[in-house]
């Protein structure tokens, strides 16, 4: 009976959360530097075990004429180690071109490919940016998924990222 009970509980915990939305705003800062390249950016959700629970977005030089854009994906070091090196790029719904300085928004609903299998629990939204001949920066925002109520969270980068905000609602 006890086995049945705990089994039931695990099943409940693992149930994917469908009806919820996540909107992520990422500011690519305008930098006054001698040589500027738009940053590579990776966005993912990480569980307490430091494993990637959901890959949300990867911006890289996807249309590089020499097909060399993927050579620098490794510079997104944390993402590369935790997820990138196991993935094939380009990947539909995940990879896209780098973004110019300014604000950019990516939206997901609970039924999207990235989130539909995500178990309920505590996560960190991780945004990593790496710029050719520039620096690298990683921002982390803890969040609960699915959200019990509408929540706005944010973090501020210091050099490679501007403000990063995430709005989740049930």
């Amino acid at each position: 009976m006890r086995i049945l009970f705990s089994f039931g509980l695990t099943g409940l915990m693992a149930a994917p959360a469908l009806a919820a939305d996540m909107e992520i705003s990422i500011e690519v800062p305008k930098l006054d530097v001698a040589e500027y390249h738009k940053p590579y950016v990776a966005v993912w959700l990480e569980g307490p075990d430091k494993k990637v629970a959901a890959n949300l977005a990867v911006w890289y030089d996807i249309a590089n004429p020499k097909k060399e854009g993927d050579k620098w994906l490794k510079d997104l070091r944390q993402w590369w180690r935790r997820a990138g090196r196991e993935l094939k790029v380009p990947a539909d719904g995940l990879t896209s071109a780098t973004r110019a300085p300014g604000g950019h928004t990516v939206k997901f609903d609970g039924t999207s490919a990235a989130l539909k299998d995500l178990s309920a629990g505590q996560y960190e939204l991780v945004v990593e940016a790496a710029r050719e001949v520039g620096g690298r920066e990683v921002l982390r925002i803890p969040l609960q998924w699915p959200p019990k109520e509408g929540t706005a969270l944010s973090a501020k980068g210091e050099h490679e990222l501007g403000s990063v905000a995430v709005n989740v609602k049930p």
Partner: protein
Amino acid sequence: MKSIIRTAVVLALSAVVPVAAHAHKAWLLPSSTVLSGTDDLAVTIDAAASNDLFYFDHRPLQLDSLVVTAPDGSKVAAENASTGKYRSTFDVPLKAPGTYRVALVMDNLFATYKDGGKEKRWRGKKENIAKEIPASATDLVVTQSTRRLETFVTAGAPDEAALKPIGAGLELEPVTHPNDLVEKSEAEFKLLLDGKPAPGVKIEIVRGGIRYRNQLGDATVTTDANGVFKYTWPEPGMYWLEASVEDDKATVEGAKQRRAGYAVTLEVLPE
């Protein structure tokens, strides 16, 4: 009489001490250890011996014993190899994803002998010892010196086929993957001698970039009863790990002692 005995004792002692400690550090230095992409991937690797890591300012290493193992276990031919005054250099094409093992495997003999009343030293390959040491030599003591220098490079996801132990001499069996090393995190390795755990062996660990700091800042760890050692990388960088043992398990006829050395260059990335 006393002094004769003392001389004899000194001679006997010097006979079992290795001819020379390695005065310089020998190393391989890869241009990258972690690579992404698939198109036309390669690394360039320098091979040199020097006091300061990783600066090529003393002498190049010969590449005749270079062995590069691909992720599928096959051997890869190095390209564009050349040897200059201070370093050798070569390219390794990475045609398939996975982990590559790059090794220089040296197997030499050292000998001390007397000829015409003079103490002589010889160093070379086993096939040359007979013709290069005169027949009139006496008190010949031959020591075998095997040394494996390695580094590892991974294109895409790391794998383990190329990491399988060779089973000869001193070598490292990774527990933590050698291309998955991050600052402030602990890595674990096993040291093997002839394929078996090597307990109680000291490993020297030095981070590169010595020229621009005042202290060597090296660390020493010792393998446990299972040949295992662990180390937490204090900061990112290119590290050099070295160990050597001496025993009487020489595999060359006529050699009584064996010195087996291992050194590896490992890159530790920032978190």
